[in-house]
C-alpha cells in the first residue's frame, strides 16, 4: 500500500476510534430505543419481529426491528455491548467504504483526503450517524449500503455483484425509507460510467423499487403528507398541526421549501432542520463562532465543488448530485438533517475531488498564497467541526443519562410500563446500568466550548 494512503487510513482509524469511544461513553438511549428493546424481549423470534410492525404503523422498517431482536438474542444479556458494538461496526464500515471512494496515490491526494475526512465527520449531517441509535442507527446502516452499492458499481461485473446490489437495495428499503438511495446511487454510478452492476441487475433493481413504492406509499401509507413531524420554515419551527393548518395537506410551497432547504443545508450548513439559525442569530446580534465556522467552511467547500464541476466535469460528482437531489426530494414532507446524512457523505467525497483539483493546478505565487489562505481557513474550520463531534457526544451522553432518571415513572405516565415482571426487571436493569456509567456534567466543561462546537439548535 502506498505510504500516503497508509497515513490517511491511520488518521481515519484514529478519528473513528475517538468517536467510537464517545459512543461507548453514551448509555443506550431511552427515546425510540427502550420500547424497541422491550418489544425484542417480548418477541418470540426474529421472524416474528420482522413481521410484527408491517401494516401496524405508517412506517415500513421491518429489518431494523428484526435486527434489534437478533442482537438482543445473541447478546446473552450484555445488551449495551451488543448494540454499541454493532453501532461501532457500522461506523467502521462507513469509514472504510468512504475511504475506498477516494483515490489516494500521492501526497497531494493524501492532503485532499485528509481535508475530505474532516468534511465527512465535521458536516452536521454526520451527527445523524452517531448522536442517536434506535437502538440501531438506521441512517448509518443505509449509508453503508449506499456506499457498498457504489463500490459494487466499480467492481468487476458478475452475477455475485448483481445479486449483492439487489440485496443491498432490499435490505436498505426494509431498514428505512431512505433505502431507495441505493437505487439512485446505482443508477447514477451507471451514468457516471461505472459498469460493475449490469443492465439486467439495474432492471431488477428498478422493478424491486417499484414494488417497494407500491407497498410503502400505496398499500401502507397512502397519505404520507399527513405525517405530523415538526419542521422548520424560515425562522420558526412549526409543529405538525400548525403545518397542516397553514399549508394544507397536499403539495404546497412548504413542500418546495423543504426540498430547497434540504439541498441548502448540505451545501451551506444553512438552514438546519428547515430553520435559518444563522440569520436568526444575526437578527438577535449574537452569532456564536460555531455558526460562522459552519457557514464559512461549507460555503468555501461548495465553491470548490462548483468550480471543479464546471472546470473538470468530473463524472465522480454525478453520484453526489443524484444522491443530494434524491435525498432532498425525500425530505418533501419535513426537513430533517438526518435525512440528508447520506448526501453529506457524498458531499465529502465531492470535496475530495474538488480540493484535489485545486491542489493539482499550477498557480503563480500570489494566487498560490491566496488559495493557501482560503484552504487553511476551510481546513481549520472543518477540523474544529470534526473535533466538535466529541463535544456533541458528551452533551448527548448527559441528555440520555438524564432521560433514564425518570424511568420507570415516564413509562407509567405513558401507559407503557410493562405488566410482565421479567420485562420490568429488564427495564430496571437497563436503567441501573445506564445510570452507573460516569457522565460528565456540562458544568465541568469550559463555557467557550458551547459557542465554538456544534450544539442543539432547537
Amino acid at each position, binding site marked *: 500500500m502506498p505510504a500516503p494512503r497508509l497515513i490517511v487510513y491511520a488518521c481515519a482509524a484514529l478519528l473513528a476510534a475517538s468517536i467510537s469511544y464517545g459512543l461507548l461513553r453514551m448509555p443506550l438511549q431511552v427515546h425510540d430505543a427502550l420500547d424497541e428493546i422491550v418489544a425484542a424481549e417480548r418477541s418470540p423470534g426474529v421472524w416474528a419481529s420482522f413481521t410484527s410492525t408491517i401494516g401496524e404503523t405508517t412506517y415500513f422498517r421491518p429489518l431494523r426491528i428484526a435486527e434489534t431482536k437478533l442482537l438482543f438474542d445473541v447478546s446473552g444479556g450484555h445488551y449495551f455491548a451488543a448494540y454499541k458494538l454493532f453501532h461501532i461496526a457500522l461506523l467502521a464500515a462507513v469509514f472504510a467504504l468512504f475511504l475506498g471512494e477516494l483515490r489516494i496515490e500521492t501526497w497531494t491526494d493524501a*492532503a485532499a483526503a485528509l481535508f475530505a475526512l474532516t468534511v465527512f465527520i465535521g458536516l452536521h449531517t454526520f451527527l445523524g450517524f452517531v448522536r442517536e441509535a434506535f437502538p440501531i442507527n438506521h441512517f448509518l446502516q443505509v449509508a453503508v449500503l449506499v456506499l457498498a452499492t457504489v463500490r459494487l458499481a466499480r467492481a468487476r461485473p458478475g452475477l455475485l455483484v448483481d445479486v449483492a446490489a439487489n440485496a443491498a437495495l432490499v435490505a436498505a428499503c426494509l431498514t428505512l425509507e431512505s433505502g431507495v438511495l441505493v437505487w439512485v446511487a446505482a443508477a447514477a454510478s451507471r451514468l457516471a460510467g461505472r459498469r460493475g452492476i449490469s443492465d439486467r441487475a439495474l432492471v431488477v433493481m428498478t422493478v424491486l423499487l417499484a414494488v417497494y413504492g407500491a407497498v410503502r406509499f400505496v398499500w401502507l401509507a397512502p397519505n404520507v403528507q399527513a405525517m405530523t413531524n415538526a419542521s422548520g420554515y424560515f425562522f420558526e419551527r412549526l409543529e405538525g398541526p400548525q403545518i397542516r393548518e397553514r399549508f394544507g395537506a397536499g403539495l404546497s410551497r412548504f413542500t418546495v421549501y423543504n426540498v430547497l432547504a434540504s439541498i441548502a443545508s448540505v451545501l451551506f450548513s444553512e438552514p438546519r432542520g428547515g430553520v435559518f439559525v444563522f440569520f436568526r442569530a444575526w437578527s438577535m446580534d449574537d452569532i456564536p463562532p460555531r455558526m460562522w465556522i459552519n457557514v464559512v467552511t461549507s460555503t468555501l467547500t461548495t465553491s470548490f465543488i462548483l468550480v471543479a464541476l464546471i472546470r473538470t466535469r468530473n463524472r465522480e460528482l454525478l453520484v453526489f448530485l443524484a444522491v443530494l437531489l434524491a435525498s432532498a426530494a425525500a425530505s418533501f414532507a419535513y426537513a430533517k438533517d438526518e435525512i440528508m446524512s447520506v448526501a453529506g457523505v457524498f458531499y465529502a467525497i465531492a470535496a475530495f475531488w474538488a480540493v484535489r483539483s485545486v491542489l493539482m493546478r499550477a498557480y503563480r505565487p500570489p494566487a498560490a498564497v491566496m488559495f493557501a*489562505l482560503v484552504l487553511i481557513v476551510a481546513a481549520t474550520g472543518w477540523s474544529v467541526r470534526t473535533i466538535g463531534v466529541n463535544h456533541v457526544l458528551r452533551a448527548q451522553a448527559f441528555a440520555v443519562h438524564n432521560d433514564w432518571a425518570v424511568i420507570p415513572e415516564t413509562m407509567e405516565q405513558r401507559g407503557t410500563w410493562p405488566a410482565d415482571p421479567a420485562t420490568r426487571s429488564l427495564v430496571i436493569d437497563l436503567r441501573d446500568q445506564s445510570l452507573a456509567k460516569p457522565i460528565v*456534567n456540562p458544568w465541568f466543561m469550559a463555557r467557550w466550548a458551547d459557542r465554538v462546537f456544534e450544539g442543539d439548535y432547537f
Partner: protein
Amino acid sequence: MTRSLLVIACAIPPLIAVGISAVIVVTAAAGGSPPFWRGGTLTLSEAAALRDQGEVTRLTVSGTDPNAVYPLRPGVIAAGALTPLEAAVGARRAEMVELLMLRGARVDPSGWRRLHCFALGTGAADVVQMLERYTPANATASCEGITTPF
C-alpha cells in the same frame, strides 16, 4: 513549491484534529479520562442544582439521603451547603423538585414554608407551582422572618 504550500495548508489542520483524537484514544486506552470526558464527582445538592437528573437518581437509588445537607463548590450556586431540595429551588429547577420528591425527599410544614419562600424569592413561577403540589397539611405560606440562603 507552490503545490507544497497548498498541500501543507490543506493537511495541517486535519492532522491537528487527528492529533487531538489520538490524545483521546491513547488516554482512554491507558485508563485515564480523555479530553471532553473529564469531570468531577457531584454531591446530591450539586447534582440537583446542575440539572443532573441522572446523577440524582443514581445517588438516591444507591442510598444517598435526599434530605441531608451537602456542600456545594463555589460557582454552582451562591451557598456553601444546602439540602438537594433547596439547591433545586435555588437553581429554579421545577423538574428537579419533582424528581427529588419522587426519590424520597420529604418536607414538613416549616421546611415547605422555607422552600416556598425561597421559590417566591427566585421569581420562578413553575417552581412555586411544583412546590404547591406537595404542600403538607397545616403548612402556611407566610414568608415573615424567612431569609433566603442564596
